[in-house]
């Protein structure tokens, strides 16, 4: 017998790194800190509570969507109809409230509608050979068209704020009273709480393990008995539900719902996920990273305004950041994993 008896696994390339350094969160955190510091140096009074709370507020609604989109991207799929689902949800929510329905009814119906829209995206992706990017490119238009049909092109506007609006997206006075000129909203609470919950689901549950596997190597996942279709459809439904919440938060903030509500959110949230370290090809990423990503985008927008740059520059700056962040994430990941 020419094969020796005891072979030891000696992985040559493994360096013993702490888990934190090789987790997906590390590089978006670094990027975030760097850019905060840059703005803090160049913009007077940037670190004030007023500015910070404004940035957080601007990010909160989209942050809720980023949670779902990130999870979906980790499972290997895209949903670019999220803006349309948000728009429909805002409209349905507003419509029920304005017609005298109870807030509970409004919330339940909105979530049902949003969840169904997500489910349709999921079923089409899972049971046809069409890639999710194309499926949701289609539903993006279809759902937006549905808002036209349902609303008849009219806008809903509420002049007196309803109590439910303040619960969903009102002033967070518990925190605001601690600081002068603070402007924190309850939407931030929703975003952070849900972010933590879903991050835990992703990293600490069986389902989360399956999400990573399905995105990382669908063949391997199938071979080990994972139900790929069910995992993906679930992620689409979760994304739909989160868009439903985002729609409710949007109406709660602006007291307005119209056909174009939520347009162009999709690119921002995917950019946030990518900046946050999630791979476009799936299998790797973090929800916390995605939240950092959307915070960064809000930071850039506020920062460009406060720096006195023409606000058109904001788009270009975000574009540069996306590419830069993606490169930086890749570079750090190659060094550490």
């Amino acid at each position, binding site marked *: *017998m*020419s*094969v*020796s*008896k*005891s*072979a*030891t*696994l000696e*992985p*040559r*390339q*493994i360096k*013993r790194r702490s*888990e934190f350094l*090789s987790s997906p969160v590390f590089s978006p955190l670094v990027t975030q800190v760097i850019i905060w510091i840059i703005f803090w140096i160049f913009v007077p009074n940037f670190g004030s509570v007023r500015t910070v709370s404004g940035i957080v507020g601007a990010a909160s609604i989209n942050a809720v969507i980023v949670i779902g989109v990130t999870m979906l991207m980790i499972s290997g799929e895209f949903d670019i109809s999220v803006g349309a689902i948000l728009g429909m949800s805002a409209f349905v929510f507003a419509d029920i409230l304005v017609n005298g329905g109870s807030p509970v009814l409004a919330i339940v119906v909105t979530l049902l509608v949003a969840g169904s829209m997500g489910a349709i995206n999921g079923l089409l992706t899972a049971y046809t050979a069409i890639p999710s990017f194309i499926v949701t490119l289609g539903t993006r238009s279809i759902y937006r068209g549905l808002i036209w049909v349902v609303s008849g092109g009219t806008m809903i506007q509420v002049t007196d704020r309803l109590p439910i609006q303040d619960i969903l997206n009102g002033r967070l006075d518990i925190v605001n009273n601690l600081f002068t000129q603070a402007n924190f909203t309850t939407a931030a609470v929703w975003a952070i709480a849900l972010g933590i919950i879903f991050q*835990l*689901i992703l990293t*600490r*549950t*069986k389902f*989360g*393990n*399956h999400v*990573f*596997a399905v995105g*990382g*190597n669908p*063949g*391997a*996942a*199938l*071979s*080990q*008995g*994972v139900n790929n279709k069910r995992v993906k459809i679930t992620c689409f439904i979760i994304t739909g539900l989160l868009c439903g919440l985002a729609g409710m938060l949007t109406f709660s903030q602006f007291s307005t719902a119209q056909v174009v509500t939520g347009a162009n959110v999709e690119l921002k949230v995917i950019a946030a996920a990518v900046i946050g370290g999630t*791979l476009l090809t799936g*299998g*790797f990423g973090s929800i916390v990273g995605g939240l950092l990503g959307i915070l960064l985008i809000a930071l850039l927008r506020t920062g460009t305004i406060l720096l006195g740059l023409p606000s058109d520059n904001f788009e270009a700056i975000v574009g540069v950041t996306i590419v830069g962040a993606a490169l930086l994430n890749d570079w750090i990941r190659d060094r550490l*994993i």
Partner: protein
Amino acid sequence: MPQVTGNATPLVKMENIVMKFGRVVALDNVDFDVRPQEIMALMGDNGAGKSTLIKILTGIYAPTSGQIRFEGEVVQISNPRRARALGIETVYQDLALVNLMSIGRNFFLGREPICQVGPLPCLNMSCIDRDTRRSLADIGIAVRSANDKVGTLSGGERQSIAIGRAVHFGMKLLILDEPTSALSVAESRKVLEYTLNAKERGMSVIFITHNIHHVTQVADRYTVIRHGKNVGTYDRDQVSADDISDLITGERES
């Protein structure tokens, strides 16, 4: 090395398997069997029919005719899940592990151990870490941490994790599809050795390969498939590497 004698019930016996795709006859009355605790080398050139045979055994295809006995009982292997439930596990080179995930998470993929934390069923990470390392150590693989990502390991190491996983979960028949074809000499040796360890722990292995020199080190028997027919099954003592080569290419008939 202890060898189970020939009159034990075969672990798996495929009888009179015919597979037709339209008018193409991929397998023509093939008989194939594997004994308990044996390493069977399944050999044949590309297109000979060995992948088709294995796909029938693992539930991907249904044979046009013929039957399969597993542990003596006639079984219908209608899908891969059924094959796995019987205890048949296949390790394809790139389809066994998720490179971006850790060793532990890969090891328990699909069978994650749970502990209840309040309302949430949580992964029992310490259990995963401990059991992965212990199980792999049992078949001779020392892993420093189950948190290391599989992508950092070499090809041979990944194969060994897949083999160790099959052993741990009590699989009875392991099918290795070209396990050493992309590996270096040193790596191949390790994989062959883990294959032997798996056999010692009670598994049977079907080793599909082109590489005669690798498989002659570990196989107990050889089956050669050519043009959809079983050209012969031989014990290790009956044939040399050159004989097998000739059988594969057709220079020898039997």
